[in-house]
């Protein structure tokens, strides 16, 4: 199975990179863009296990490695 993991900074955490990208967009003339938040995207291929186990593994690696729970949250999707 393939799992997609999205990691984003928590809403309460300031995102200096997103802010910089937003500033650039404004200077390019995209005045309607209100905010940009930068995140990370992972495609994880998991073989040889049941879909249920695969889901559990994807959740586990997102929590243990791909995201830092102090500043980030994550969402796991299956393909």
């Amino acid at each position, binding site marked *: 199975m393939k799992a997609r993991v999205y990691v984003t900074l928590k809403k309460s955490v*300031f995102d*200096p990179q997103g802010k910089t990208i937003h500033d650039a967009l404004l200077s390019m003339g995209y005045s309607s863009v209100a905010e940009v938040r930068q995140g990370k995207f992972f495609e994880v291929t998991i073989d040889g296990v049941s879909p249920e186990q695969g889901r559990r593994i994807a959740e586990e690696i997102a929590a243990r490695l*791909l995201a*830092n729970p*102090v*500043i980030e949250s994550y969402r796991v999707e299956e393909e």
Partner: protein
Amino acid sequence: MRVGVVVFPGSNCDHDSYHVLKHVMGCETRFVWHKEAGLEGLDAVVLPGGFAYGDYLRTGAIARFSPVMRSVVEFAKTGAPVIGICNGFQILQEAGLLPGAMLRNRGVKFLSQPVQVRVERADTPLTAGLRAGELLTMPIAHGEGNFYLPDDELRRLEDAGRVVFRYAARTGGLDDASNPNGSVNAIAGVCSAQRNVVALMPHPERAAEPALGCSDGRRLFEALTRSLVAA
């Protein structure tokens, strides 16, 4: 006293730390490769600065799973000093030995410059014998040094007196202009609840000899050797 300097792939302040500990301070010092599991015979461990694993994923995120880190966690439990400098700080945070996380600097840029740091606590192995309120000048060199902790946890950290260093003005006061990276409460260094795990973003090893233009960092290594002798 015997001190170990942990070397991860991508560490680049390991030799500087080794040099100061061995040649400036006269400590018996050895490198500890990150695949080594044992820290036998060591009295203190230093996690040096650099870019372990190229900062892939997050600073310190991969290094935290290096075999040596399991031993570092056990070593810290014994109460022995574990010191983190810059990337070493980030690795200790990822390993759960120190609180918080480092965000990208608020100005997004990598910062390499001298800063003033105010010593907040003298009851750690890295600050023993210094005075709270003392100012030290040391360089910083990081892109992710913007210390962050949610408000409630930050309050608990402050209440427990676990903030060891803050970025400060030359007057000793705190102001936004003297906080290079946007860290909450201008935090530059913290310690564990047991106070034996201590880390800071500035580089004391790059300011430990007159030839380098500043020797303030040497004070921290002197404190470390003092606390090892006392232990």
